[in-house]
Every structure is written in C-alpha cells, then in structure tokens.
C-alpha cells in the first residue's frame, strides 16, 4: 500500500510545483518584459510586487465561469482539463536527481513526446467548443504549428537517442556525468568519464548536438505556443486565440498549462542536451568538484537552474522577436529546421559508428 502513497505524494508534489512555478513564471515574465522595455513592472502589491500574481489568481478564482450560449458545452468544459493534464503528465517521466524520478519508464522520451501531443487535442477541443471564429482560427493555427514542429523536434531528439542508445530519460541523464557506467568522450576522443562536469554533457560529447539543441529549442518554442511562434494566440489578430471564450478558473488552467509547458520543454532540453541533473563543474586533479556537487539535493538544484535558465531565454526571446507570419513559420519548419534535423540525425549515426 505504501507505494500508492508515494505515487499520490509525488503527483501532488509535481502539481504544486507546476502551480507555484506558474505563479513565479508570470511574475518573472512581467518583470523581465518590464526591464527589457525600461519599465518597472508590478511594484505595488507586496515588496517589489511579489504578491501581484497571488492577487491575480485570487481574482481569477472569484470570476464567473461563463459558457457561451452557442458553445459545445462538453468539449468546452473538458478542454482546459485535457490541456493541463497532458502537460502535467509529461512531468511523470522526467528525472530530477540520481535515483529520483516519478516514473522509471524505459520509453520515457517516447512517452513524453506522445503525451505532450495530446495537448493539441485539448486546444482543438477548446477552439471548436467555443463556437467562435477567432477561437477556431487560433486552434487550427496551433495544430498546424504543433504538428509541423514535432517533426524537427522529433528528429533532433532522435539524434540524441542515437548517441545515448536509450529512450530512458534517467539513463540519458546518468550518461552525462561522473555516474556514467560507460566510457564518455569529450568531442569523441578525450575520455572524461571520471572528470565529468560540463565536458561530458551531450552537446559536448557530440558537438553537432549543439545544432540539434538549437533546433529542439526553436521547435519547443513553437510547441508551447510562445513568441515568436505565438500565432495561435496572436493578440493583435485573434483576440487571444483558442482561449478567447474562457474565463475564471478555466482560463487559469490554460494559463497554468502554458507555463508548465514552458518549464517542461525546458527541462527536457536540459535533460537531453545540457547534462540533466549533472553538475557543470568538472573534477580537476585532486579538486573533486564534480564528486562534491553530485547528489539528490544537488541534482534538483542543477536541473532546476538549467531549466530556469532556459525558461529565462524563452522569455528573453518572447520580448525581443516579433511574431512570424504563418507562411514564414512553415518555411522555417519545413525548409530549414527539418533538413537540418535530418543532417543531425545522419551525423549522429556516423558519430556513433566511428567515434564512440
């Protein structure tokens, strides 16, 4: 019976983490955008406006749940739940530290990739169920975009899997540090199995994975509907896309899903390319920095820092680059990223065969 308790506790832990992260993320986003634009952002609620998002969510909870008269009620009500649950389930397979993973799945990466695609379904349900032209336009754009960008993202991930030879995310994480059971080579020739640190991360084990990482990062922006790929929301054209008709907690759930998705894709990027929970500090001679900074608490710290850094980059990009047009979006996906991802996959095969 004990393991049921563990399951429930880890589920609650992950949920409260994603909720807290969303609160923090919204605050961070508002501050980052403000500073980028030489403004101040929230300042009045709490010290430096830190309580602003709590006040916002309090307001959101009190709002009336409006269902448009012409809406498809079942789809409309179910959609936010499906969107959030799809993102939330993605966390199940992601390792946080050595030996600390909610679910030890052999097909972890495959599962992650499959489960976040379910979000698309929720978005389509929201768009269709709202019975609103802006919502359905946003939903259709979102689906076209997410499905298209899954191809370069998928091939970028496959090029990692070819190097790592496993789909288990915990195994992929273990390979990128001093706990690795196999021989790890920096750039294919320098054995860094005992040195660890930044040298054994996947992007340095096989340098073409840097390109794969960039491809994955761009695609992950598109999959989480973030600027510059936010055409499904496109405030200036579509009001706010598929969630135009949502109010109160349902809107809150969609918002929560968006920020959880940001963290989720960043965390997967960190796990696959940036050494997961492994420390960036290498062992140098007698100074065993890597050994000292490896452990459960350290692992959570490192993966957290790496993911937050990537989320920060996502925000930075959002407040810099203008939105792409639909045709530009598809051009980038099919004519640039997809061929590049194929090249990465090919290079991975060659690298695996000749250099590892």
């Amino acid at each position, binding site marked *: 019976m004990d393991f049921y308790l563990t399951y429930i506790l880890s589920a609650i832990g992950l949920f409260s983490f994603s909720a807290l992260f969303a609160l923090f993320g919204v605050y961070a986003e508002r501050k980052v955008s403000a500073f980028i*634009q*030489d*403004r101040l952002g929230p300042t009045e609620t709490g010290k430096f406006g830190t309580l602003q998002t709590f006040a916002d969510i309090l307001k959101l909870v009190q709002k009336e749940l409006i269902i448009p008269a012409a809406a498809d009620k079942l789809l409309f009500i179910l959609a936010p739940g499906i969107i959030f649950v799809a993102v939330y389930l993605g966390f199940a397979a992601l390792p946080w530290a050595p030996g600390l993973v909610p679910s030890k799945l052999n097909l972890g990466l495959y599962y992650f990739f499959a489960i976040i695609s379910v979000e698309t379904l929720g978005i389509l349900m929201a768009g269709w169920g709202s019975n609103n032209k802006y919502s359905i336009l946003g939903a259709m754009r979102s689906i076209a975009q997410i499905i298209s960008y899954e191809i370069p993202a998928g091939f970028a991930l496959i090029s990692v899997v070819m190097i790592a030879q496993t789909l288990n995310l915990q195994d992929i994480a273990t390979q990128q540090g001093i706990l690795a059971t196999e021989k790890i080579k920096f750039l294919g020739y320098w054995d860094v199995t005992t040195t660890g640190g930044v040298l054994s991360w996947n992007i340095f084990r096989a340098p073409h994975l840097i390109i794969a990482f960039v491809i994955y990062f761009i695609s992950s922006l598109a999959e989480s509907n973030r600027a510059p790929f936010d055409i499904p929301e496109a405030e200036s054209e579509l009001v706010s896309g598929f969630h135009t008709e949502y109010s109160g907690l349902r809107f809150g759930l969609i918002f929560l899903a968006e920020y959880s998705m940001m963290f989720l894709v960043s965390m997967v990027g960190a796990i696959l390319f940036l050494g997961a929970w492994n420390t960036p500090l290498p062992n140098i001679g007698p100074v065993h920095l890597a050994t000292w900074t490896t452990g459960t608490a350290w692992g959570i710290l490192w993966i957290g820092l790496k993911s937050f850094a990537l989320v920060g980059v996502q925000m*930075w990009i959002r407040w*810099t680059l203008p939105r792409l047009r639909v045709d530009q979006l598809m051009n980038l996906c099919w004519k640039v990223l997809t061929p590049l991802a194929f090249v990465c996959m090919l290079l991975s095969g060659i690298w695996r065969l000749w250099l590892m």
Partner: protein
Amino acid sequence: MIKNAFNGFITAWKGLALTIRHLFASNAKRTVIPVSDDNYFKKLEGTNTIQYPAQKLPIPEVGRYQLDVEIDDCIVCDLCAKICPVDCIDIESIKATEAIGQTSDGTTKRLYAAKFDIDMAKCMYCGLCTIVCPTECITMTNLYDKSVFDISKLTYQFSDMTPEDAAEKKQLFEKQQAEKQAAKLAAMQKKEGGA
C-alpha cells in the same frame, strides 16, 4: 536559402543583444524633470516609468486642464458660452439696476451671474473660452486629476449668488423697468396732452 537562414540568426541575435542590454541596464528610478528642461529628451538611462501618484511631471501653472472662473472679475458677457464648440458653459444673467462695481482691470460690471455652470465632462479643452474672455477671468489651470463618483460633480458651479439673491435682483430689475415704463408712459401722455 542557407544565407537567409544565417541572416535570420544574425539579426535575431542583434535584437536579443539589444534587449539583454536593457534587461541588465540601470533600473534607477526616473528623476522627474519638466518638459521645458534642456535635458528632458536626453534622458535615456534608467526606467521610463513615472510612478504617478508618487511622482508627478511638473506642469506650468496655467496648463491646459480644468477650467477655473474668477467670478468677481466676470462681466457676464456670455462670450465664452457662445464660442464654446461643445456648449459646456451655461450662463444665466440678470441685468443690474445700476453699475455694480468694477473688475480688477477696471471694467464696469452691469450684469449679475445668476448661474455660471461649466460641465467639465463635456469640455474638450480647446481653450477658446479663455481666449475670448475680455477680462481674462476664465482660465485653464494645472489641475488634471479629477475623478468623481457622481457625474453631476463634474459640473462646476462658479456663481456665488443664492437663488433668493437672484430672485431679489430680478425683482428689483423688473421693478425698475416697470418704473421706467411708467415714467415713459407718463412722459408720453404729458407730451400728447401738451400737443
């Protein structure tokens, strides 16, 4: 194609470099200086936000905001009400029986202002009324933050006459008119009788 993609990355990086500079640039509070200051447009450092109730941009005393009437200087000529494009000034005048004093610039006042209402909710802040005013008693001030809970509070009443006062003055004037009329009539009758 490759050149295009490469160019895309280069230009994106340029933009990102610009924003990251601003992200870590000084977040010093803005020092508020008036627009007339020489350095006003040269201030590029720090935040741009004016934290309004705490900080206020200095404006000249005769700005172009709320209207104000110095009713003692008003000769109730009604020019402002006539020129107003949105008809937000409502004046009711009563003729006085005699000259009732002088304004500060020496013009003789011959009319009482029974009513001098300005509906600031209607006002379009064109300032025409201040231009036509012969005694310069209607001016625009530097007050702009005016929020009220009741829209009728936005109708400013500048007349200092009570309704009783006004009624009395009206009666006086009517009495004088009647006396004048009577005198005129008497004079005419006398003239006719004399002829």
